């Protein structure tokens, strides 16, 4: 129910319903002040407007409709508008408005050269939107290891003690709202205990359906998949254990761990030029094959989601560093379309550094590839490039040379922008202000005593 919607029912005075401004940090004096000021101001505004209506229209808008407008403003603009005035600060910080405000890619989580979890804003500048040290979890957990991300949520393995020898929990958290929930432990089926199975969890979350998330954890037996997949659904709050119906020769690429949740189905990449999928209930299993002739000889692709479609790509790092991007055109038949082919080398040579085209003005692509004729910038011949993300809402992709540059490239207008001069090999973060879906009382800090193995608080 949108805040502040609806006019009066009967009678002659206009009275907007007070907007449901839910503030997370209620104790914050600035916000309390803002709330009081806004209520006072709203009261005065009603009286003023009723009198002024006959004369000239007032410039301002009452708070109810203003909230309706702000809820449609993208989140980035909302954060800017916090500076406008105290009432605007309260509105722009309000959870209800942030929840409705259109969210988009804001930055990337990645592991830096010291293997520390870091966050880079989309434009590469300024203090990070999200504190990657996840301080809201630190009150309870001493050791936190982020296992995966999906859109606005993170999946972590956490230890309350300082050593990994103790018991660990799977925790799903939302850095925007600072909410988190503990998942029950995965219980290895009795007959498999001796096989020392270990789970590799993949978090699935779709911000357009924020009412649930899922965790898919294929259980590995040594170096291969056991065929058992544990699936956690936030709707049931339980793990279910299902037998995989993918073919026996399926090898999921657990190294790169590329995964996409699309239409309630988890997609994982394999080492055999295909993508395997399973739905949240573990009932529908599919394998989507990539086109037979992949340009490089590498059988693994990366996947991502953009504009509601599944994207797959790979860079031929062994030869000409061409990037091939496919889009799954027909989900039912598994038909791919090669949408874009990009010369990655050319992209990285464009910004800043000595352009090959300026040194040799008559260069063409043929000469570019001829390494003997062109004095290459100081690099060896083994540079590898990676496209690590596609923008969820538009035709922009993100690439890194894995050494000292990360760029974005607009596939429509061919514009290259440098994000930062460090290699970010991360996953996209899209803030989400919806309530973390849990179906029992396992919210911030509280643990259910009915859980197997979870220590009560």
């Amino acid at each position: 129910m949108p805040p502040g919607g609806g006019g009066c029912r009967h009678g002659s005075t206009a009275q907007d319903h007070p907007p449901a401004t839910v503030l997370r940090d209620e104790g914050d004096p600035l916000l309390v002040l803002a709330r009081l000021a806004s209520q006072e101001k709203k009261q005065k505004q009603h009286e003023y407007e009723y009198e002024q209506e006959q004369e000239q229209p007032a410039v301002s808008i009452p708070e109810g409709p203003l909230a309706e407008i702000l809820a449609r403003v993208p989140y980035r603009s909302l954060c800017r508008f916090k500076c406008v005035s105290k009432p605007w600060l309260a509105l722009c910080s309000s959870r209800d408005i942030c929840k409705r405000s259109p969210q988009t890619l804001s930055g990337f989580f990645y592991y830096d050269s010291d293997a520390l979890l870091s966050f880079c804003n989309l434009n590469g500048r300024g203090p990070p939107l999200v504190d990657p040290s996840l301080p809201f979890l630190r009150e309870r957990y001493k050791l936190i290891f982020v296992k995966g991300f999906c859109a606005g949520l993170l999946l972590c393995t956490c230890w309350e003690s300082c050593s990994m020898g103790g018991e660990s929990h799977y925790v799903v958290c939302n850095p925007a709202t600072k909410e988190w929930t503990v998942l029950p432990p995965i219980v290895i089926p009795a007959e498999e205990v001796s096989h020392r199975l270990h789970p590799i969890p993949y978090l699935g979350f779709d911000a357009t359906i924020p009412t649930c998330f899922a965790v898919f954890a294929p259980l590995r037996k040594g170096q291969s998949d056991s065929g058992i997949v544990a699936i956690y659904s936030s709707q049931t709050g339980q793990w279910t254990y299902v037998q995989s119906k993918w073919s026996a020769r399926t090898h999921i690429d657990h190294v790169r761990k590329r995964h996409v949740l699309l239409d309630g189905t988890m997609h994982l990449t394999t080492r055999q030029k295909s993508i395997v999928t399973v739905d949240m209930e573990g009932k529908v299993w599919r394998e989507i094959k990539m086109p037979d002739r992949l340009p490089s000889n590498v059988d693994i692709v990366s996947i991502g989601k953009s504009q509601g479609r599944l994207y797959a790509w790979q860079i031929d790092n062994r030869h000409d560093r061409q990037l091939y991007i496919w889009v799954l055109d027909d989900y039912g038949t598994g038909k791919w379309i090669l949408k874009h082919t990009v010369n990655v080398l050319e992209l990285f040579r464009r910004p800043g550094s000595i352009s090959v085209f300026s040194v040799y003005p008559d260069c063409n692509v043929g000469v570019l590839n001829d390494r003997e004729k062109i004095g290459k910038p100081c690099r060896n011949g083994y540079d590898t490039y990676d496209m690590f993300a596609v923008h969820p809402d538009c035709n922009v992709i993100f690439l890194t040379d894995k050494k000292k540059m990360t760029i974005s490239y607009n596939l429509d207008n061919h514009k290259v922008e440098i994000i930062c001069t460090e290699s970010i090999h991360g996953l996209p973060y899209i803030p989400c202000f919806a309530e973390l879906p849990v179906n029992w009382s396992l919210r911030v800090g509280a643990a259910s005593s009915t859980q197997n193995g979870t220590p009560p608080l």
Partner: protein
Amino acid sequence: MAATTADGSKVVGGGEKSNVDEESKMITLFSSDGERFEVTQEAAAMSQTIHHMMEDGCVDDEGVHLPNVGSSILAMVIEYCNRHVASPDEKEDIRSFDAGFVNVEHHTLFDIIRAANYLDVKELMDLCCQTVADSIKSKSVEEIRELFGIVNDFTPEEEAEIRKENQWAFE
């Protein structure tokens, strides 16, 4: 579009004078400055406020008084409602009508929003709020203050603090 009948009242939109049919039954609306508007009940029902009044039997023979809505704005709202009940399925036409409808100055848009809010016409609210949202999303803080007539009630230090916290949004 508006015709003036013999008694001076405006008939806006496609209302039938002889109203045997329930749907084409007319209802009179009075703006804050005393102007009369005849609308079909169907169009009037797009306003939840008026709709509830009709259902609860609060509408007398005279009509509905809307002391919060001036005549020029009420005429526009009625035009919107008439258009939307007339051919709700012609999406393309409606889209281009809507685009033309909101192509007005900001203060008129604000007036329409206030009227639509008071009258509780959800579609019109959605349309206008989205239009305003789209037009302000790239504006600077100063431009917003000017547009909405807002006085900055932050101290320079307070504003600097907020700006710093949200640095990423300013770049």
